[in-house]
């Protein structure tokens, strides 16, 4: 074990962002994780078991679908990277499977996770059932109300879902509660963080586990479209599906990367979740990154119709991609996302997650922006079954 935590070294930052701002108790656990992760990735037996699980259990590679009717509307070919078709219905399984296998390799028997929309909670519960590990998922009370179906799914697979009643009762507070659990149980528990957030090594490790989205999509684009995309678009809450699809394209200088944040009721109101557009750098949940906060450094509650984007922070690598100019971050309101949700269902027979609907809405709002030979690649991060009941309550259904 190193004297100064290996993960705290400059290489585990993304420019000025990231780091390991945690209580001292967790430093040895993070050091052990950093080492175990590096060791696992060098072990062909581990990478093979991960590859096998992704292929034969999660259903990878996920397809790349064309979207003929929507493409006609936009005036450019749109391609859909179908993470919604993975087992459990979202990209979250890529990371949960990998970290679950890592936890098993480290000899941990108890898994902790936080969840917002419930997709990461479901993915984690799924992996724990398969690997025979105890699973405790922290979920905000408000999110449990919004995402009842996912709560049932987690419980069906044997997970304990703990309602978090502090603060805003959403993802932020669920994450804090999961960290508190880990501070008390780090010797026997493994914390599977669901996004590219948290202290090092999590942002980089989760990025690596999600990078398969972009690796596959890049090869599929070259094969199917015969070209790289002009623009890659993904929604950003914590930002794991976005980093996952961006990563393979970062070196392709002509490929534009666009992350879409939740503008909630609008960026001119206090009710949004656009940390990169409206926040400023600060420290939350172990990392330096853009945050929604007041002038005194208190975290400002986020708002989004989509529980998965309802988070006042963002992964540190996104903060770096923003400041370096390599990626562009835009935002979409609740109403725009709801309209896009219906639009894609009707035009393409794909019901997207409300999170993904934000990315769809941005492309839709920019019809005519691309030439007919400039393909656009969208990460369909998850499917919308979980959102149908919530969407049915809104007025837009009647249109």
């Amino acid at each position: 074990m190193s004297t100064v935590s290996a993960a705290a070294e400059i290489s585990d930052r993304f420019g000025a962002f990231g780091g390991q701002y945690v209580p001292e108790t967790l430093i040895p656990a993070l050091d052990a994780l950093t080492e175990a992760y590096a060791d696992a990735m060098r072990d062909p037996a581990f990478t093979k078991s991960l590859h096998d699980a992704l292929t034969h259990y999660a259903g990878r590679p996920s397809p790349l679908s064309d979207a003929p009717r929507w493409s006609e509307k936009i005036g450019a070919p749109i391609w859909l990277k179908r993470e919604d078709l993975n087992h459990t219905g979202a990209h979250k399984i890529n990371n949960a499977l990998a970290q679950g296998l890592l936890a098993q390799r480290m000899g941990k028997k108890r898994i902790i996770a936080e969840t917002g929309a419930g997709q990461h909670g479901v993915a984690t519960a799924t992996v724990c059932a398969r690997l025979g590990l105890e699973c405790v998922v922290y979920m905000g009370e408000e999110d449990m109300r919004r995402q009842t179906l996912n709560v049932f799914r987690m419980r069906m697979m044997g997970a304990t879902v703990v309602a978090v009643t502090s603060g805003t009762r959403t993802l932020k507070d669920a994450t804090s509660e999961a960290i508190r659990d880990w501070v008390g149980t780090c010797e026997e528990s493994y914390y599977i963080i669901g996004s590219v957030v948290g202290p090092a090594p999590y942002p980089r490790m989760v990025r690596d586990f999600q990078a398969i989205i972009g690796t596959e999509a890049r090869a599929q684009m070259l094969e199917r479209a015969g070209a790289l995309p002009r623009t890659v678009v993904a929604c950003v809450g914590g930002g794991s599906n976005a980093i996952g699809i961006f990563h393979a394209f970062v070196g392709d200088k002509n490929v534009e990367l666009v992350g879409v944040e939740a503008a909630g009721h609008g960026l001119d109101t206090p009710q949004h979740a656009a940390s990169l557009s409206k926040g400023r750098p600060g420290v939350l949940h172990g990392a330096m990154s853009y945050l929604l906060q007041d002038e005194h450094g208190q975290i400002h509650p986020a708002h989004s119709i989509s529980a998965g984007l309802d988070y006042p922070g963002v992964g540190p690598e996104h903060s770096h991609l923003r400041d370096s100019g390599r990626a562009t971050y835009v935002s979409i309101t609740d109403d725009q996302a709801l309209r896009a949700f219906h639009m894609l269902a009707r035009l393409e027979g794909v019901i997207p997650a409300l999170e993904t609907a934000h990315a769809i809405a941005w492309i839709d709002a920019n019809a005519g922006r691309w030439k007919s030979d400039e393909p656009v690649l969208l990460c369909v991060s998850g499917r919308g079954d979980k959102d149908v009941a919530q969407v049915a309550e809104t007025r837009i259904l009647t249109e």
Partner: protein
Amino acid sequence: MLNERFSSLRAAGRRALVCYVTAGHPDRARSLELIRGLEDAGADVLEIGVPFSDPVADGPVIQSSSQTALEQGMTLDGALELIAEAKLRIPVVLFSYLNPIIAAGPDVLVRAKRAGVSGVLVTDLPVGADPEREAWFGAGPLDFVRLVAPTTPRDRMELIAKHGRGFVYLISRLGVTGMQAELAKSLPASIETLRSVCSLPICVGFGISTPEQAKTVGALADGIVVGSAIVQAAGRSVNEAVVLTRSLRAALDEVK
């Protein structure tokens, strides 16, 4: 001022009683009454907590006191005003998460010193996590107090001892702040290891709430930190917190 306090305690063969309160809890007026009352009840050092919206190292009692204080508009500068107004004779350590300190601007440590603060302790800035910012704390006018956890290996303890000032805060057990029926079995060994690499006074906190526990830990360490128990008592009445503090003082003074 922390050094003087600990030297005089050592000379007198006494153990330090470090008391934690959340600034602005239960409200501003009673918070002021409370910190003055704790000084009179025999506290040697006061840790004044800056309330934070997302206190990941804290259990339910301090979480709730932080939320109460924030709802009434308490801020880091509000805490400094409170400290200045209290005009205490004992040293004050500002206890904060990093984000409110960053937000308070580059001259915040100087403002804190002016308000009468002697030391600063940051829950989520472990040794080596951010050398540039740690250097800023180290070069400032306050003693930068560092924490050691039960999971901290010996070589990190050495590093923490080297970078720490004032005293070292040893966390007694795994987990967040809060009262416990029993002390961790590993505590004597942790104190012994830390003592072998560290010449600073060692104060033990987390989970200490009763006079019996104070006495037990006081026999092993240079001082104890009591937080949640005082905060919980203060939520009922300032007097209850003062009475508890007097009983802790009396128990510690039985340690020879």
